[in-house]
């Protein structure tokens, strides 16, 4: 089974803090994604990565950055956390080729509260 893990289930930070959310997948997938989930808005893509050291902006990249130094790990960084970044953050991965390409596998999520 594909396993995607996220470093924290719940996180509470203060406005202005730098926040790191970590995601690790164990299936050697090339593609990795960061989403935020808000009620009524569904999932919105923040950033994605096709390969190590490669990244592309999603639909709502403002206020976020990412890092992919190793294939299995994709980090989301909030440079200066703000209250409007309080949300559920979901990481996902998918293979680039093969019959399961296009199917994204999700981690359990990190619920971030910024006070």
């Amino acid at each position, binding site marked *: 089974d594909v396993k995607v893990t996220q470093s924290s289930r719940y996180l509470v930070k203060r406005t202005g803090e730098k926040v790191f959310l970590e995601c690790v997948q164990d299936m050697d997938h090339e593609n990795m994604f960061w989403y935020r989930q808000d009620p009524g808005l569904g999932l919105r893509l923040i950033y994605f990565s096709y390969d190590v050291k490669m990244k592309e902006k999603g639909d709502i990249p403002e206020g976020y950055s990412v890092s992919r130094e190793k294939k299995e790990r994709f980090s989301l960084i909030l440079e200066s956390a703000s209250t409007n970044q309080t949300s559920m953050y979901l990481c996902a991965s998918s293979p680039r080729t093969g019959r399961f390409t*296009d199917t*994204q596998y*999700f981690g*359990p999520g990190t619920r971030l509260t910024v006070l």
Partner: protein
Amino acid sequence: AQSVAQPEDQVNVAEGNPLTVKCTYSVSGNPYLFWYVQYPNRGLQFLLKYITGDNLVKGSYGFEAEFNKSQTSFHLKKPSALVSDSALYFCAVREVKAAGNKLTFGGGTRVLVKP
């Protein structure tokens, strides 16, 4: 641009009755379509996908979905709902020719199955 609409925020159904969760999409070319489910305090789980071929797609847990190109719809169905089907359901789309496998998600539909 690709987009997805889930017109119902919540669907209530009695256990044993048929369940339908609606989804319509918009892409400029041919679509790949997906359904994901999120159980309480869990990450998203893949249910089924339409890539090509038969318009009726069967997936996990007895769910199926019908692709209707003329109506640009991909409704999720289950003939006999269970209380354990109560969850949040997301429809997603990707245009076949879009770069990478970036998905666009709908806002989600909460399903409540009552005993």
